[in-house]
Each structure stands twice: as C-alpha cells, then as structure tokens.
C-alpha cells in the first residue's frame, strides 16, 4: 500500500480518526477500571483505619469532617472516623514532595495508637521511609505518645528522631499528627 499524501484533508481526517478511536478505547478502559480503583481506595482506607486503631474488628460509628483555620488563616480539612476505641483522624500537610496525607489513630485519651500514610510524594528511599520510621520499635517511634504538647523533631528540641536526611518530611509528618490531635480534641470538646 502506498503511503497517504500529506494533503490537508488526509491530515485532518487521520488525526481526527486516531484521536476519536483512542478516546473511545480510553473511555472503555476507564469504565472498566473505575469500580476496581474506587474499591481499592475504600479498602485502603478501611484497612488503614483498622491498622491505626490496632484493632482487627471495629465499626466506625460516626464520620465527622472538620474545617479548622490554621495560624496562617488557611482552612484545613480533617476527617474524624469515630469508633469504639477512640478515633482515626485524617490530616493533610505539605511534605517535601507534595501533599502528605496521614491517618492517625487516637484512643479516647488522645494517645497515639498507630498511623499510616494514605498519600505522599516523598523521595523514595528517604522521606518515603516515613511509613515505617515512626512505627512501634523503630527509631522515631511515636506510638504511645500524646501530642498535648506538640511533637517536634530532636533538631527542633523535641523528643522524636527525624528520618535521616529527611528533616522536612519528618517535620511535615509531625505537624500532621499534631494537627490531627488538635482536631480530635476540638471535636471531643464540642460533643
């Protein structure tokens, strides 16, 4: 077969056809994968809540969405998943590479039971280590602490060891935890 000429008609026709065909393929695939993707997200959240509450079986009794102003008057959104052991609080700060979304579990006293990273864009091998670094038995363990006085890294005079070479990520993470604690306490006062 001879190659098509680069006439205006041919070019417009070919480009349009290619774009339409590819668009249809993408729409089909999107339709196919949108349910599994949504399920994955839900499952990740449900697993996350169970994990940070250190419970195999629990029910979320109430979900509150709090909108608080931070000290720069910017609105921050917190989602509090209340359950029989306390609450799992979702909190977002800006990490080194972008949004850092953390889920922290508190018991009714406000003691940290566990945490997990829901979303982050930290440097692999450095800031991304935050998912393990602050867990029980690791170097920067925060489990069992109560952020009634805000948690800070040791470089800032605090009691938590920052991730090696990732102080910015560590600060952002602890800020998210502190904010989550404040949101939870705030919400309890209102109850």
């Amino acid at each position, binding site marked *: 077969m001879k*190659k*098509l000429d680069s006439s205006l008609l041919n070019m417009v026709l070919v480009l349009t056809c290619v774009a339409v065909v590819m668009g249809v393929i*993408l729409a089909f695939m999107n339709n196919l994968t949108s349910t*599994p993707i949504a399920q994955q997200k839900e499952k990740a959240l449900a697993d996350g809540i169970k994990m940070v509450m250190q419970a195999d079986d629990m029910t979320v009794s109430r979900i509150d969405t709090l909108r608080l102003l931070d000290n720069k008057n910017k609105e921050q959104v917190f989602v509090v998943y209340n359950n029989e052991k306390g609450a799992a609080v979702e909190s977002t700060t800006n990490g080194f590479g972008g949004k850092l979304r953390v889920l922290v579990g508190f018991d009714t006293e406000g003691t940290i039971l566990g945490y997990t990273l829901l979303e982050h864009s930290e*440097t692999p*091998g450095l800031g991304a280590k935050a998912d393990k670094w602050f867990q029980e038995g690791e170097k920067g363990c925060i489990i069992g602490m109560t952020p009634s006085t805000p948690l800070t890294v040791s470089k800032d005079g605090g009691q938590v060891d920052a991730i090696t070479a990732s102080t910015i990520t560590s600060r952002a993470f602890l800020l998210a935890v502190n904010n989550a604690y404040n949101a939870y306490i705030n919400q309890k006062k209102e109850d």
Partner: protein
Amino acid sequence: MNYLNIIKNGIVKDNPTFVLMLGMCPTLATTTSAGNGLAMGLATMAVLMCTNFVISCMKNLTPDKVRIPVFIVVIATFVTLLQMAIKAYLPQVDKELGLFIPLIVVNCIILGRAEAFAAKNSPVASLIDGVGIGLGFTLALTLLGIVREILGAGAVFGYAFIPEDYNILLFVLAPGAFITLGYLIAIVNKLK
C-alpha cells in the same frame, strides 16, 4: 531481518540507556532501588511493545507531516491504559511508581523507536524491537537500581545485608544516580 538479532541489538548494540542514552530522566529518577528500576523497565517495555506494533500497523495510513502528533496520541493512550490498569489491579506498584508512570509518555525511547524503527519496519519486527529495547532498558534500570540499593541502602530487592551504619546515603540521592550511571556507561562501553 532475524528476530533474534533485533532482540540482541536492543539489549547490547542499541541499548537505550548505555548506548543510545535515551530516556535519562526516568533512568535517574526511578532507580533508587532494584525493585523500582525493574518495575519501571517492565512498564516501559509493555508500552513500547504496544506502541511499536500499533504505529507500525498504521504507518501507511499516517501522512508524514502529522506523524509525530499521531504517534504521541497513540503513546499517550497506551500509557494512560497502563496507568489505569496499575491503579486498579496493582495498588502496591502504584504507590511506589505512580508518579512516574505518566512520564513514560515523554520518554524519548518510545517516540525514538516509533520514528527510527516502527515507521520503517513490519508490525511483527516492530513488536520484537519493542521487546529487545524494552529488555535492554529493563536490564539497565535494574542494574543501576541494584548498584544504588547495595551502596545506598545495603540491600538488594529489599533484603538488607549490610548494617545501616555502612550505607552511603548519597547513592540513593540524585548525585548517586549520576555517578553510578557514569561508571556503568564506561564499564559497558569498555566491555562491548
């Protein structure tokens, strides 16, 4: 052309990373560990096979003056398909590499092979070329990842065997990527 030769060319003579020096951005960015390098290489290989095949199939239907936009639309489609599939069925991979998958669209290896090979050869040969170049890229990325992970994190594919005190953090960071890549290019070109 002999198919085995095409594959060998992709891995040795035309290795995209060590010889053609294409696609340096994902090469440097994703090889912080052997596993990441391998996953990125395989993802690129999957896209490259599909795009090479499809572009070769429609090479006679593509007017010369609009070939680049047509290629890019095809490439972007396959990358998006891959991204959706990974998000839906491999959430673990998505967590590690999610950020880099869309960047495969602008990986010059893919457009380069479309131009240099698929637009001139038969669909089957193009598919084989995709396998060869893809394997070459995967091998290079994995090798780079292994070296950086051993020196930087004291581990291979996540299995640590060197105590943390002896890790050289530099190799996980960007400068380590450049140093490792430079040495590997020198060694590979000496051996070749």
